[in-house]
């Protein structure tokens, strides 16, 4: 898709925790590719499938030339049959394989919801532990350039709702590789959602194989006045907002949950205990979504710490529009986080 190239050039480079340091750096897609490459080399049961995994651009670079290196039996293009192909990946997982199924957009996962929600997520429980489904399903949230209603959805709120799934949303290249390895090694179905605007981000990524445990969040920035939980790309926006807030004397703590299911509730509650204020900035609809779930958890378990109402920042209750003017109105960003923080930190 030619527009993706244009979009990449326009986007602001991502946040770099190792700016100016002499460490090995990879971009987000390079980190994913390295993780897949090393997983394929390590375990013959791993295979990679998806529409375009062997294309000349290697799905934005995430699978580039892996078919040449590991063979077309283990890295293969798929028909556009998302539901059956998900079931096929599940069936292979049931007999000991570890499939990784890549999609360009979460929107397309709606075509596979029967196999994701009725099958992959339920087989372990419904067969009393007599089935396991080690499967990773990846998709990339699109944004901008008029991608509109059916190429910009995030949908992690839907996946968080379903028991039996795990849900991963990395915000850095380092996490992308480490969480991918954990996801492939996990014996359960994992939905692994990336964000297109993070693909320009580069950061320190060790060459060796390493894993980041699922269910462990990270404090991206220490602060004492307000806790901002950022989901995926909104971590970057929150970090930018925090720099500006600091200029106004407001000290924000940024939490990146990294995995939404299981969710590291403790890291969020411990932060709110310290700051007394909570903003959740998500890349999805607010209504019935992840931001609402986290707000509910803190309201139930951390009400006594709160000095101000919990604030949710996310998408309004409409489909993603196409016109760039409406896109600007649709997507919240740095300014929304700053204004919300100012509203509750007085």
């Amino acid at each position, binding site marked *: 898709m030619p527009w993706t190239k244009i979009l990449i050039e326009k986007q602001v480079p991502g946040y770099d925790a190792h700016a100016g340091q002499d460490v090995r750096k990879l971009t987000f897609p390079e980190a994913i590719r390295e993780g897949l490459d090393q997983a394929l080399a390590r375990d013959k049961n791993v295979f990679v499938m998806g529409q375009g995994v062997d294309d000349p651009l290697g799905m934005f670079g995430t699978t580039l030339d892996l078919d040449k290196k590991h063979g077309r039996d283990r890295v293969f293009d798929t028909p556009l049959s998302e539901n059956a192909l998900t079931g096929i990946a599940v069936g292979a997982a049931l007999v000991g394989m570890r499939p990784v199924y890549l999609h360009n957009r979460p929107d397309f996962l709606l075509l596979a919801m*029967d196999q994701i929600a009725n099958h992959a997520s339920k087989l372990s429980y419904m067969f009393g*532990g007599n089935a396991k489904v080690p499967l990773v399903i990846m998709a990339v949230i699109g944004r901008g350039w008029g991608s509109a209603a059916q190429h910009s959805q995030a949908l992690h709120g839907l996946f968080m709702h379903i028991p039996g799934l795990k849900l991963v949303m990395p915000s850095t290249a380092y996490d992308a590789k480490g969480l991918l390895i954990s996801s492939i090694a996990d014996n359960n179905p994992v939905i692994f959602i990336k964000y297109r605007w993070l693909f320009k981000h580069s950061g320190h990524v060790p060459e060796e194989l390493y894993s980041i445990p699922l269910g462990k969040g990270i404090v991206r920035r220490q602060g004492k006045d307000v806790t901002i939980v950022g989901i995926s790309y909104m971590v970057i926006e929150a970090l930018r907002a925090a720099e500006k807030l600091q200029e106004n004397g407001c000290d924000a703590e940024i939490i990146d949950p990294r995995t939404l299911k299981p969710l590291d509730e403790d890291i969020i509650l411990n932060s709110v205990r310290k700051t007394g204020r909570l903003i959740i900035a998500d890349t999805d609809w607010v209504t019935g979504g992840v931001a609402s779930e986290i707000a509910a958890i803190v309201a139930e378990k951390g009400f006594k710490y709160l000095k101000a109402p919990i604030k949710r920042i996310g998408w309004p209750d409409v489909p993603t529009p196409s016109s760039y003017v409406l896109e600007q109105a649709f997507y919240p960003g740095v300014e929304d986080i700053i204004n919300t923080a100012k509203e509750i930190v007085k």
Partner: protein
Amino acid sequence: MKTTGIDKHTLLNLYIIVSKIRKVQLRIEQLYHEDEMKTPVHLCIGQEAIAAGVCENLERDDYVFSNHRGHGHYIAKGGDLKAMVAELYCKETGCSRGRGGSMHLVDTSVGLLGSSSIVGGGIPLAVGAAMASALKNDKRVSVAFFGDAASEEGVLYESMNFAALKKLPVVFVCENNFYSVYSHQSARQANTDITTRPKAFNIPAYNVDGRDVIDAYKKSKEAICVARSGKGPAFIECRAYRWRGHAGPGDSLKAKYRKSDEWNEWMKCCPLKDFKKVLINETILTEEKINQINKDIDTEIDEAFDFAQKSPLPKKEELTKYLYS
């Protein structure tokens, strides 16, 4: 029904399986009113020959994926009867430890990898297991059992396309009993010849009289041979009649949705009695031997129900166990 070319041992096995499936179903039906089997049961009385005929051609480590009407598949693949009945009784000793019920039978020790109650849901799972077999080159065959209504689901066509594209060792077995709950096939399908559809993917398709275990055995042998030899998938449509309602015992509304001439025509044949007649006529089995077989099956069923009834229920504190592996 012609038994030529089939050895006596196989015929005996086929008879045992058909009889066992029938007898287990009848026992479930007989005891269901006690309300101790608190799970919907989809009886396969009238369709026993299909599961028996197909599974007789499978090895223990071949894979089978079943559906909501799966008791026969489970028994024919050699699943543990005690664990199946205990599952119907919602017990911890059930094959799915009381988490699945009648529609989610599983016995991985004999390759019965699960049963889905989403119509067509198990089809791609079988294709996926077949893909794993192809990658590992382990010569196993996967079988997906599904009903006529699953041939209305898009996932069947997606699955057939991929299986044919990759030449996967999978056999699609469509059990056409003509009814989806109360809806007749003719009210649902523009072309009721289901075998025309696999042909669009160049998948060889076989028509089987699903009441005739010999026909089911012979044609599935051919289909399984195609799959195992690496030539790709095969498809079998087996026509048989659902002698009971969609779920539960009996068929109290029979007169309201079935045509009497259709009913009378299909009820002329019985997969069990007709087979027995042939075996006796051809002096393969004697009445005496058959009585002994039936007595043994009854004992096995008695023991299974006794085991199930006496087994412990799951513990409430283990509600969330098995959510993750």
